[in-house]
């Protein structure tokens, strides 16, 4: 498929990428564009843009903030990978949010009820989380394969069902225990054998990076190998690009949909693990929520590329962390959400602009080379 024939969705999800120097132009353009818009918003709200960004950069590069950034990025990265697996297959798994919350709750309850030798205990909790995530995603996969239900609709609905199911389970009579004197309620805290120690890799601070950051990196490598170096990955990408072509070459599309959904869900199951095993040791009322939706934005930002997603996750985490300082300087922290939103939009717009520029340039070149100099077709004709 030549770039000129690609669909917008292909370009949006990074299945078609501009090559050469132009591939660098897009992210640079996006960052400049996002910077401009954010500056305008900052000016409108009466805050000096340059100073604001300097404040954020100063605070965000302190050792403790770097640890926080890496910790946030770990969960964001896993979440974005879960979304990206679906994207590569043309599946929009909006349900990562529900999948990880339910997985973390069940895994926390199972882990809290047992005591095992340390590596086994951790492995069991992680396996339970992956199974629950995969199982919950499989419902949407089965509905799509058997009944043709759009996974966008079913996963959104399943998010709501997961919320209700989670609330039902997180009850004194079921999986939860009360904390004395607290208005919180959570699963039985995990014993020391299930706690993954942090890594003191950032000097100048006592706080530690989630030990499971290693798991996130390993998953990134696995994602890359699976998609780009295996027959399965080829089939998955082929199905995502063109279903009829995949069918013609002997791919069982229904099976692929189900497997992709299950893999996406299993990855989603891991999203809550760094927090559960590295920090809170219990699933309680204040377990972080909404990570699944952050994952969608970061997968788009990283264009489903494991390295791109890593940068996206770090950028997002950096912005989240450094937003903490803004209120001390009487700047609304919501400015960071605007920044994050504009960056995602800018990336999409920038890639599209670069893509069109490239096609137009190609067409001009061809028409110049053609004898008699046929007139160039108008720009953007392909879109």
């Amino acid at each position: 498929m030549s770039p000129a024939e690609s669909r917008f969705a292909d370009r949006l999800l990074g299945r078609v990428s501009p090559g050469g120097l132009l591939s660098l132009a897009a992210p640079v353009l996006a960052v400049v564009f996002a910077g401009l818009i954010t500056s305008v918003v900052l000016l409108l709200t009466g805050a000096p843009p340059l100073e604001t960004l300097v404040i954020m950069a100063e605070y965000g590069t302190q050792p403790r903030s770097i640890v926080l950034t890496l910790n946030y990025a770990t969960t964001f990265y896993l979440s974005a990978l879960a979304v990206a697996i679906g994207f590569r297959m043309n599946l929009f798994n909006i349900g990562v949010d529900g999948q990880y919350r339910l997985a973390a709750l069940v895994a926390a309850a199972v882990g809290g009820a047992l005591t095992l030798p340390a590596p086994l205990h951790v492995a069991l909790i992680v396996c339970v989380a992956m199974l629950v995530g995969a199982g919950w995603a499989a419902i949407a996969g089965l509905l799509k394969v058997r009944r043709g239900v759009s996974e966008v609709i079913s996963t959104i609905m399943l998010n709501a069902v997961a919320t209700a199911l989670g609330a039902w389970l997180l009850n004194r009579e079921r999986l939860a225990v009360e904390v004395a004197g607290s208005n919180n309620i959570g699963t039985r805290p995990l014993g020391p054998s299930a706690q993954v120690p942090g890594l003191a890799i950032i000097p100048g601070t006592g706080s530690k990076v989630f030990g499971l950051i290693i798991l996130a990196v390993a998953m990134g490598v696995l994602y890359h190998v699976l998609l780009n170096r295996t027959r399965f990955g080829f089939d998955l990408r082929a199905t995502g690009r063109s279903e009829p072509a995949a069918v013609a070459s002997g791919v069982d599309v229904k099976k692929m949909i189900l497997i992709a959904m299950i893999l996406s869900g299993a990855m989603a199951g891991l999203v809550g693990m760094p927090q559960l095993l590295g920090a809170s040791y219990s699933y309680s009322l204040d377990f972080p929520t909404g990570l699944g939706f952050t994952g969608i934005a970061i997968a788009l930002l990283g264009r489903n590329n494991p390295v791109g997603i890593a940068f996206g996750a770090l950028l997002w985490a950096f912005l989240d962390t450094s937003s903490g300082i803004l209120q001390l300087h009487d700047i609304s922290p919501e400015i960071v959400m605007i920044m994050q939103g504009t960056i995602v939009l800018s990336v999409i717009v920038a890639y599209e602009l670069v893509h069109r520029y490239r096609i137009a340039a190609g067409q001009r070149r061809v028409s110049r080379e053609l004898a008699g100099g046929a007139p160039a077709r108008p720009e953007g004709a392909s879109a």
Partner: protein
Amino acid sequence: MLHNRFGRLAAVALAGGALMGVAACGGGEEPTTSATPAGSTAPAGKGAKVGLAYDIGGRGDQSFNDAAAAGLDKAKSELGLADTKELDAGSGETEAAKEERLRLLAQGGFNPVIAIGFAYSGPLKKVAAEFPEVTFAIVDDAAATAPNISNLLFAEHEGSFLVGAAAALKTKKEHIGFVGGVQVPLIQKFQAGFVAGAKKVKADVQIDVKYLTQPPDFSGFSDPAKGKTAAEGMFDAGADVVYHAAGGSGGGVFEAAKAAKGLAIGVDSDQAKTASPAVRDVIVTSMIKKVDVAVFDFLKSFTSGSVKAGSTIYDLKAGGVDYSTTGGRVDDITSELDEYKQKIISGEITVPDKTS
């Protein structure tokens, strides 16, 4: 500018490992914030710098956080505070974010630091240990204990008992309702007291109970449309008095009561004074939870150097919870309500704080 920031990030992310290796001999002391950590030994007394960390919603939620803000405002004008800083929470954030918020305040020289809401329990325990010279307070939590933490607690069930009794005395159809914002233990405390109070007056009164959302969906505290739908359902089913413990969603309950010509009971503040003027006439009474008083008292004792660590319980006896009489719609039953109040204070009636 942004490019520069991005560059810094990239440098941190990529070269991080190498840099860390080089600098690793530097030892692991903290804090390293530029925000003057040394200044946190601020003297008690006049000119205190007060830091306040809100729960989700922050100032302007017309409910829980606003009550805390009112206490701070009162302290600002009456106690001559040098500086105040109020930080908001983000929805769905991690404990690490809450911890960092408290730490920023403590590091920035704010003393005392007040955390609003039980979600700060774990984070506060950690931060309070790091800053033994800073005085902390937390509202609605008794689990975080340290020599420098004051726990400000409320007996919501006792106040709810009184408005439950009021509802049972006021109902003509022997049918009342309870709308909870989010189904969490704290709000179940309101429910338990309300039900106990109503049953005490009329053992066979019918009580509908409905929670707007389940955790981790906390929108039930800020969605008037959900409150309206739930209350409409109760009025349609035959209830004529509905009590809400749903924060900002309560506005919808009042609207539903107005439309159904029913009655409603407010919560947290005296809502016959604070609700939208159009619906004030349906509010029989309100269960007042004096977070503002607790915050003000704490600041006052800090100013006078008499802060007490540990739990301070704001119950009926201490006047921390109560029912309101604004509008005169409970004037005919105040003697009965006050009788119950005395019985609770004397210990003759023990109000359950858990739903059975």
